[in-house]
């Protein structure tokens, strides 16, 4: 029997790795992948708890997370394409006009 905490720790680690990706990667696409990674970590938590508590509703929430992730991927990648068209770079350090 695998203790629940294993799954939770695993998802925590994955989540933190996602955050780390967001922090240290420069390529906007990779950063985007890190976000997906975090979402997956959260999903894992959901599923683990649903198995632990025998509550299916958690898995339903997983679906909603997936839906949001898919929508986000579609829109986000479209934005990335637009950015790339306008300034020929994917480096977020070079995309910093949003300031005073």
């Amino acid at each position, binding site marked *: 029997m*695998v203790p629940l905490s294993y799954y939770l*720790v695993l998802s925590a680690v994955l989540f933190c*790795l996602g955050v780390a990706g967001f922090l240290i990667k420069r390529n906007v*696409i990779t950063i985007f992948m*890190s976000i997906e990674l975090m979402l997956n970590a959260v999903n894992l938590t959901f*599923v683990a708890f649903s*198995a632990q508590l025998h509550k*299916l509703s958690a898995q339903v929430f*997983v679906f909603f997370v997936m839906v949001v992730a898919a929508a986000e991927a579609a829109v986000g990648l479209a*934005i990335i394409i637009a950015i790339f068209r306008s300034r020929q770079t994917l480096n977020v350090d070079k995309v910093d006009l949003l300031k005073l």
Partner: protein
Amino acid sequence: MLHLVLFYIFAFLCVAGAVNLLAQRHPINSALSLIVVMGSLAVLYLLLGAEFVAAIQVIVYAGAVMVLFVFVIMLLNAGEEEHSNASRVAVYVGVPALIALAALVVYGLLHNTPTAGVQLAIGEFMGGVKPIANLLFRDFLLPFEVTSVLILIAIMGAVVLAQRGED
């Protein structure tokens, strides 16, 4: 026993893939390692008895979302990532905060967790299609519909964003 072994294998795959995602300098490698993560997550879902979620995980994430990523990488012909360091905050604030975060979460988890293990045998699937469908289309009907609207908006947004200007 077998459960534990499988868990270790795929947990390791997950972490390895995630680390590789960060280590690789080329986005396409990162993408592939992310696919690995997702695949092994799907297996973990199976271990947790959520077969439907597992299938959807493969179809949606591995089969659609990541394909989209790869497709965009190919489309933009993204190359190796440059070494630029415009953000000191990310390094001097973010990284320590991140480490603290990880430490805190793991500490909190290990200190107060339900001692009971996941009471599921391999091949015992509680997350079948029918019960989930009942939940999704009865109890959670409104959120479901709302997400459908969300998807629609996302589609339109993507089309609008990605189309070239009138030139």
